[in-house]
């Protein structure tokens, strides 16, 4: 049943979405993620799905809201400025407890920025991004395989929690082609969708909303959402350790930066430096407990990000008090090379 494929990250992601049963894609063109909508515009017809090139990212995310309210698996993809426009909708999705999968092929900013790969949207993705007290699950793939696998997972987690899930990747992960093993999709066991709108036939009318005006209602709703985020922390935290045994220094890095860090670590090991990697796969919930446990025996950490310092705050909050956390930022332009990171880690080793 397993099949080896050679394909680019964005296609691996889109194939994963269709495999997960996503039949509704709404999106607006923006570089560098256009091969995702282009792929869906071709493929959705073949699976009797629906592709709409919306008039804006604002409209895309709200079309998702509608399709999701109808019980369908729906997704959109965009890149940073587009995500800014979607924040209103994401807040409504979270407030209305609707599942959705939103892909951010992170480009550089602020403003129009540039099309080069960046991890500058870490805060936006992990802190909710829109108004109000909410979180989105954030998955950070680091390979073409994960672009595919985490997309399948994203749809399941979105349904499990009735919450938007963000896949935070970048142009490198979207454009690289590599080997991927295509396995059959085994969905999580999910609760029945007993909340969807389809017309009040043989039942009381249902309502999808995020407005709570009655006494105490809003507060209760916020604590209910909070409990959901706590449950995510208990049940759906993911990370990867790489060569972390007997390490003197742990690099904490995600996505493309983590890939480059792996090569830098290999170079370091070849020179006899004991360096390992801790790679968060879920950025929210952040793997704080696993990182804390690691910091009981390793006391030196170097956070490497393709920004000027965002995840490093979560790293600092997670590790034991007596652990040192250093930061190396590779601001956007071209992604860092392994040799650059090797030099950076030597400075703090």
């Amino acid at each position: 049943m397993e099949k080896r494929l050679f394909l680019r990250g964005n296609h691996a992601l889109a194939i994963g979405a269709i495999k997960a049963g996503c039949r509704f894609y709404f999106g607006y063109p923006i570089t560098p993620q256009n091969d995702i909508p282009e792929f869906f515009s071709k493929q959705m017809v073949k699976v009797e799905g629906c592709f709409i090139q919306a008039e804006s990212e604002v409209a895309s995310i709200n079309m998702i809201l509608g399709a999701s309210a109808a019980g369908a698996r729906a997704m959109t993809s965009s890149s940073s400025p587009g995500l800014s426009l979607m924040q209103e909708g994401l807040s409504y999705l979270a407030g209305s407890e609707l599942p959705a999968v939103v892909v951010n092929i992170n480009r550089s900013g602020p403003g129009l920025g540039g099309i080069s790969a960046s991890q500058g949207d870490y805060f936006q993705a992990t802190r909710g991004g829109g108004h109000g007290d909410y979180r989105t699950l954030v998955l950070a793939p680091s390979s073409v395989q994960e672009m595919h696998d985490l997309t399948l997972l994203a749809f399941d987690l979105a349904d499990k929690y009735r919450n938007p899930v963000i896949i935070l990747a970048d142009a490198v992960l979207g454009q690289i082609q590599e080997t991927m093993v295509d396995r059959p999709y085994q969905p999580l066991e999910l609760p029945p969708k007993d909340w969807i709108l389809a017309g009040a036939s043989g039942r009381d009318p249902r309502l999808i909303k995020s407005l709570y005006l009655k006494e105490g209602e809003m507060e209760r709703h916020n604590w209910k959402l909070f409990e959901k985020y706590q449950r995510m922390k208990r049940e759906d935290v993911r990370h990867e350790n790489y060569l972390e045994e007997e390490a003197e220094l742990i690099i904490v890095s995600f996505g493309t930066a983590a890939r480059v860090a792996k090569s830098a670590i290999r170079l370091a090991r070849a020179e006899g430096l004991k360096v390992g990697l801790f790679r968060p796969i879920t950025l929210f919930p952040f793997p704080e407990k696993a990182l804390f446990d690691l910091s009981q025996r390793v006391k030196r950490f170097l956070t490497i990000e393709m920004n000027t310092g965002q995840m490093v705050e979560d790293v600092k909050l997670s590790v034991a008090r007596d652990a040192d956390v250093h930061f190396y930022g590779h601001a956007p332009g071209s992604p860092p090379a392994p040799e650059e990171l090797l030099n950076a880690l030597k400075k703090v080793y």
Partner: protein
Amino acid sequence: MYHEIIMSGVGGQGIMVIGSLLAQAAFMENLNVTYTPIYGVEKRGGHADCTVVISSEEIGSPIVDSPQSCIIMSRPSLGKYGPRVKPGGFLLLNSSFVDPLEVRRKDLDILSVPALEIAQTLGNDRLSNMVIIGAFVEKTRVVSLDTLAAALSQIFEEHYHHLLPANAAAISKGAEYARNSFHQ
């Protein structure tokens, strides 16, 4: 085995095609491989670079600063990547466009291939890229020449399949040239 290759030239020379061809061949040989295209802002005429990493183990960075091998198809590319090749590494020059005398480094294995002239003997200038990749594979053996030729049908859309024999012939020509060359 862990082999990093950067291929660089200008848009329209078919850099991306030979990059994905090599990657596809590595894939067909059950190796791990990443292929990273890097386009200039404009699709044609600007820089066209790509990186291919082929390995029998897990591949770390798809981004490479200092590759073991470099394929250089234009003068600006030589300036950009020539200095970055690892000491002892392999530099393949398309000498139809790049003068080998411009290479100052003495610590590299260099092969110059007049790809355009060879392609012209096959009656199609546009086959230069295939001549180059044929020579590269002959020299490095990162994959077999047979697999490389077999990969052609995977990366060309079906309506271009009538061009496969000509491309395969160009690969053979390039390989033949490499076999018969003296290295600097």
